[in-house]
């Protein structure tokens, strides 16, 4: 049953991705992009990952979409130009090759939900077995996130800080920065 729900959502998702690709109206694209994230969040719930779903809903549909809208409002330019110069065959060929490679790779991947597959049998088995006992936290995602792989999470917080610093460096000054029109020295 969950497989069917999963597939239906994936097909919706594919349609949404194509819609983002096709639309020329950028505000509409921002909305479609938010919907795309919401659908992904729904898929995460089906895949037993409420923590990830929670985050995706808050970040993808919330922060990312809001930032996209604010950017659009700031540049006051709601339409994508019909570009004729840029070649589209080369990207298409690259994407088909990459996609083909990935499908080649998934040939011997374990089926969705196979409890005997390597990701479940190796490292993760211990988290499920001993996670609560060793950390005192029943939510294993929190246990792994904060303790077993706490260093990753420290890195993640640092990434957030870095992004904050970067954006402040770019947009922090109230006045528009003076920028030289021509390359230096000319």
């Amino acid at each position: 049953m969950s497989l069917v729900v999963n597939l239906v959502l994936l097909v919706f998702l594919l349609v949404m991705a194509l819609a983002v690709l096709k639309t020329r109206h950028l505000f509409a694209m921002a909305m479609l992009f938010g919907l795309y994230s919401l659908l992904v969040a729904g898929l995460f719930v089906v895949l037993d990952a409420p923590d990830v779903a929670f985050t995706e809903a808050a970040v993808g549909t919330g922060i990312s979409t809001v930032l996209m809208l604010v950017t659009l409002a700031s540049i006051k330019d709601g339409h994508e130009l019909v570009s004729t110069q840029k070649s589209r065959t080369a990207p298409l060929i690259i994407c088909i090759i990459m996609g083909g490679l990935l499908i080649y790779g998934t040939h011997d991947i374990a089926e969705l939900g196979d409890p005997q597959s390597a990701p479940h049998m190796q490292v993760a088995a211990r988290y499920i077995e001993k996670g609560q006992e060793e950390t005192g936290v029943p939510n294993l995602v929190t246990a792994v996130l904060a303790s077993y792989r706490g260093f990753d999470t420290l890195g993640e917080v640092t990434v957030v800080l870095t992004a904050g610093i970067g954006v402040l460096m770019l947009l922090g000054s109230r006045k528009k920065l003076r920028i030289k029109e021509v390359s230096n020295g000319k």
Partner: protein
Amino acid sequence: MEQLTILLIVIPLMVAPITALIPSEKVTWLLTLIVCLISLAISCYILYEVIDGSHVIYELGGWRPPWGIEYKIDSLNAFVALIVSAMGCLSCLFAYRSVPDEIEEKMIPLFYAAFQLCLLGLLGIALTGDIFNLFVFLEISSLATYALISMGKNRKALTAAFSYLILGTIGATFFLIGVGFLFAASGSLNTADIASRFDSFKDMQLVETALIFMVMGIALKAAIFPLHSWLPNAYSQAPSTVGIFLSATATKVSIYVLLRILYDLYPVDYWVNMLLPQIMLSLGCVAVIYGSYRAWQQTEMKRLLAFSSIAQIGYIVIGFSLVSQLGLTAAILHLFNHALIKSTLFIGAGILLYRANTTELGSLRGLGRDMPWTFAAITLAGLSLIGVPGTVGFVTKWYLLEAAVEKGMWIVVITIVLGSVLAIGYVWKIVENLYFRSKRKVHIQDVPSGDSAIARTPKTMSAALWIGAILCIFFGLNTELSFEAASSAATALLKQ
């Protein structure tokens, strides 16, 4: 001893957030310098400890691998960490006068914080033994890099940063796909754990695809030949300090990751028959010729140096695609040597930019006569780039030639020689314009910015330049020190 290794990460991590809050350019600079110096001291000590082939193991959070994240530091890790922190010190020394000149005053604390975060990210990549953790630190350093590049004076810096952001993220995501495929096959993320159980899943197509995607992703970040398009603009448009630091470290660390994937994560005999060495070798050769030729065409010094970097990365690729102890040693040694040469040359370019407010070679004519000492140091580093005996450049090219001859690859030998000839061409172009062309009417005293302070090269900048130039000669004459480290690193890689 063990606790020292993690301090390499913890110190920049704790200092960077504080730096971002201090509204003083002097204090933040001093903090950055201290962080770099401490990192340098610690990485020297660690290298000294592990150079005999031993390991330092550090389990983060006290969890045993593969459940927790582990640092397993051998001489290669320590060597790369040493390169990163040494170049951090050098560019920080240069930054003292250059950053206030190029960056808006209000942004300086943030600039130094981002610089430290970039250092932190690169050190994290160099030390970790967990492939997902590597991705996280890769992104820390990348995000900091994008922000730093965009601080360049010219508006082109913005587009350079944006295209680097797009390509860098594609590279990182490809790497992430590779990690995911490998995880699907092995169920683990710990390098040593995957390597030790490799035989049980080596026949899966998943593992093959994982290798391809990881190599592609990292090759994009390392600017290996057809994937180099972001590099020239990023390096030449970035503020001088950033250009120095990145040209010396960013691609080097990515190449280090490539070495880890190819020699550590995957056994050598897995990919040696997959056409991969041949492909890499030919890409390396093309990169040497293409990079040198494009460098020769350039009329702007920083862009010239950036294209020369593409060629130099080609030498490194040739070195490790030969799959021999000697070739690998040459490649690892060149990581260090090239970092030294390129940072010295970029410091030179930075000084010229500071004094003459331009790096267009045509506008720099005759400037070498007014600044003989700067000119002398640039020439020394330029000679190293060509590979004149007695300089570091010669050492690596010699070992590289030896390795190629050992394998009977005459095309590679010809490529290296041809690359050196082209290098003479583009280095001569700099020297000729700086010294032998008659001076233009514009004197340095009446440069557009016209500041009287600019009439002298600041001592910190000269010091950074000369430290770099002297080290180019020092390690060219005393090869044992760097050679021992590189060959110990190569042995550590081939053993597994």
